[in-house]
């Protein structure tokens, strides 16, 4: 498996993510087929991804179209990343000439609530992929006020990754069942691994979370939530969340000298990828970090350069906070939508049904984005089998399947991006001690709730 096989850009830090998409007004060269939408021929837009990713989707769509006696299908790979892609898509929708299907790397809720995407509920009834075949927490990332605006065909699933060899070196049992079940256990174990040389962090155990996108998972692990979708109320400054951030902050102070800057100067302890802005290698792969939370996309990329300095890593369920009761997981899905104005909505939906059940298996085989529909018979990714053997690959695949079933609702707000930015701001303020936990979360709560109400009004 080459190091370009992974398609979704979220392995890049949020910053790097933007780097590739920042230039406002960059001339976008649209392929000639991008707007040539016609009846009886499916047109699919992808936000980007590697060549392999493009090839897989082109092949899947062509195969489906041929089988369904449709005309020649067109797949447009990468109209620009993230926001730029969204701009193109919005432009095509408002111009009344959108693709029949589009993949999204951002929640469809915001634009769906604005009326950009077709509601799928009627078509789902009596189809091969009715509502009940989707994990509820996952589907909620496409739903607003009970209407489904897209499908999370595959998803990266967040769980704990750990280095079995580091565990064993300390005499700690390395099997999944023995992995810490609570935050307290995790924090206690973390200290075993953390070594400072002056102001340089030589090696570490686990880290308090500071990724804004996954804060909803940690909130759920502590029995809270960030967004109460039923009542349309944000709960960013709830007791559980204040408790969570206070726990993280104390942990940072106790174990990491209260300064993430020192941590970041010592290596990339944030995720499992080389840091795109500092160029520093991932501490986890370097064998300097015992464990971290990561999405399942790392399954493919972990064997890419830099190759891990150890063989055996494993996955475990996310531990539970003091106020939490059971472990949950989270995802970053690959969403698919049918834009309003599609000329072939039924054929598009049929393709999504095919993709959800059969297509996603082929996809997962080549790129480890986990298929989410409950009817899918998952087969371990070929690359993983090759590297770790059939037994481990099957075990991990089964584990990810279980995790996909206990996904907590996230990505479910019509003001998702605004919320994410507010969380990022609050987290930064808390960790840099620019503002007390309660105030920082309170500010984020007030601003996000106001934005939600503004968007929902009228």
């Amino acid at each position, binding site marked *: 498996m080459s190091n370009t096989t992974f398609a979704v850009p979220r392995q890049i830090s949020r910053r790097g993510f*933007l780097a590739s998409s920042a230039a406002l007004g960059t001339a976008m060269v649209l392929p000639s087929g991008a707007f040539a939408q016609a009846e009886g021929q499916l047109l699919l837009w992808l936000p980007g991804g590697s060549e392999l990713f493009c090839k897989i989707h082109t092949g899947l769509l062509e195969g489906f179209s041929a089988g369904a006696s449709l005309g020649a299908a067109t797949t447009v790979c990468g109209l620009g990343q993230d926001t730029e892609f969204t701009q193109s898509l919005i432009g095509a929708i408002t111009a009344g000439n959108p693709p029949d299907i589009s993949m999204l790397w951002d929640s469809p809720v915001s634009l769906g609530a604005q009326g950009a995407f077709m509601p799928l509920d009627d078509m789902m009834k009596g189809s091969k992929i009715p509502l009940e075949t989707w994990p509820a927490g996952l589907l909620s990332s496409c739903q607003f006020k009970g209407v489904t605006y897209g499908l999370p065909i595959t998803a990266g699933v967040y769980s704990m990754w750990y280095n079995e060899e580091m565990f064993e070196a300390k005499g700690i049992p390395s099997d999944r069942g023995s992995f810490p079940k609570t935050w307290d256990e995790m924090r206690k174990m973390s200290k075993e691994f953390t070594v400072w040389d002056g102001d*340089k962090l030589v090696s570490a155990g686990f880290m308090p979370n500071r990724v804004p996108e996954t804060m909803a998972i940690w909130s759920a692990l502590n029995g809270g939530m960030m967004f109460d979708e039923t009542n349309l109320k944000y709960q960013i400054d709830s007791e559980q969340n204040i408790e969570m951030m206070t726990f993280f902050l104390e942990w940072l102070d106790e174990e990491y000298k209260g300064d993430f800057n020192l941590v970041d100067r010592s290596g990339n302890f944030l995720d499992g990828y080389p840091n795109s802005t500092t160029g520093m290698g991932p501490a986890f792969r370097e064998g300097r970090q015992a464990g971290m939370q990561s999405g399942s996309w790392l399954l493919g990329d972990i064997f890419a350069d830099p190759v891990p300095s150890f063989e055996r890593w494993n996955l475990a369920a996310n531990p539970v906070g003091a106020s939490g009761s059971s472990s949950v997981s989270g995802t970053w899905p690959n969403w698919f939508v049918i834009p309003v104005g599609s000329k072939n909505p039924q054929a598009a939906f049929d393709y999504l049904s095919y993709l959800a059940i059969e297509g996603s298996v082929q996809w997962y085989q080549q790129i480890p984005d986990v298929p989410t529909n409950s009817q899918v018979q998952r087969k371990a990714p070929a690359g993983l089998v090759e590297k770790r053997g059939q037994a481990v690959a099957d075990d991990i695949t089964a584990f990810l399947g279980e995790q996909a079933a206990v996904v907590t609702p996230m990505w479910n707000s019509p003001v998702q991006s605004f919320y994410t930015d507010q969380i990022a701001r609050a987290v930064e303020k808390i960790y840099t001690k620019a503002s007390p936990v309660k105030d920082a979360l309170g500010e984020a709560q007030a601003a996000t709730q106001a934005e939600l109400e503004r968007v929902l009004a009228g």
Partner: protein
Amino acid sequence: MPITSAPPEAAVLPRRNRKAQRGEARAGVLFALPWIIGMTLFVAIPLVVTFYIAQTKFQIIGAPKWVGMQNYEALWSDPAFWKSAQNTLIFAAISVPVKLIIALGLALLLNRATALSGFYRTVFYLPFLMPAVAGSVVFMLLLTPNAGPVNIALEAMGLNPPDWLLDPKAALWTLILLSLWPLGVETLVFLGGLQNIPKDVSEAADLDSPKRWHKLVWITLPLITPMVLFNLVIGIIYSFQVFTQAIVIGGTTGTPAEATLMYMVVLYRAAFRYFNMGLAAAMATVLFVVVLILTLLIFKTARSWVHYEGGET
């Protein structure tokens, strides 16, 4: 043709002139037409539309809905608006003058006729052709606190370098530092001005005083004030719109701790991340008015300090 007592030449001559002028005027309008159409389509209409959208709730999809001054009120109470305005003002206030001074210094060096001056001119202009995104990423790598070449070099010299883009206290200053690159265009504009100074005027100044700074202050600078004015106005307009470097470095939240949160970043994220076009348009309108006022003020004062070659008689 009217019958007059004037000799025919006298009657014909002015008529021919008028004809010629009409023809010229027509041609003039025709030549300007593409520009006029362009201005109308891409500047005037969007400007008016922006003013209108600023008074609506418009979430990109669907129709704008009139809300009056609500967006401006929202701006007034939005801490991101004030924070980004503050950052942008500091950025502009320092970046513009420093950039002008360095560009002038470079232009003065380049203006010396040496065998390599053509080469240097190209070298200094080249960075301008580099995409801003790529340039910013390179600087981020260079300025990485621990492993970055800049800090390794500074530490080797026994200095205690800052965390540059990671330290909230240093990040804005680092951004200002990065804005000094590239300088190619400003330098070329100054160089054009310097080369426009007649050689003999410069020599006359050499004969009048042996001190170089005398010539710089009393002769050279006054003679390139039109270029100073140009660079100043363009510099202010651009620095108020600093965007690419800021968003590449700080993302949409101005990491670290909103130190790099610039006005245009807040505007951009409102428009294309939060789909709040009304607020974005209101921000654009505020920026437009502020830059307009600043530019007018500069032009007003310019009369007293800018020397135009074709000027007063």
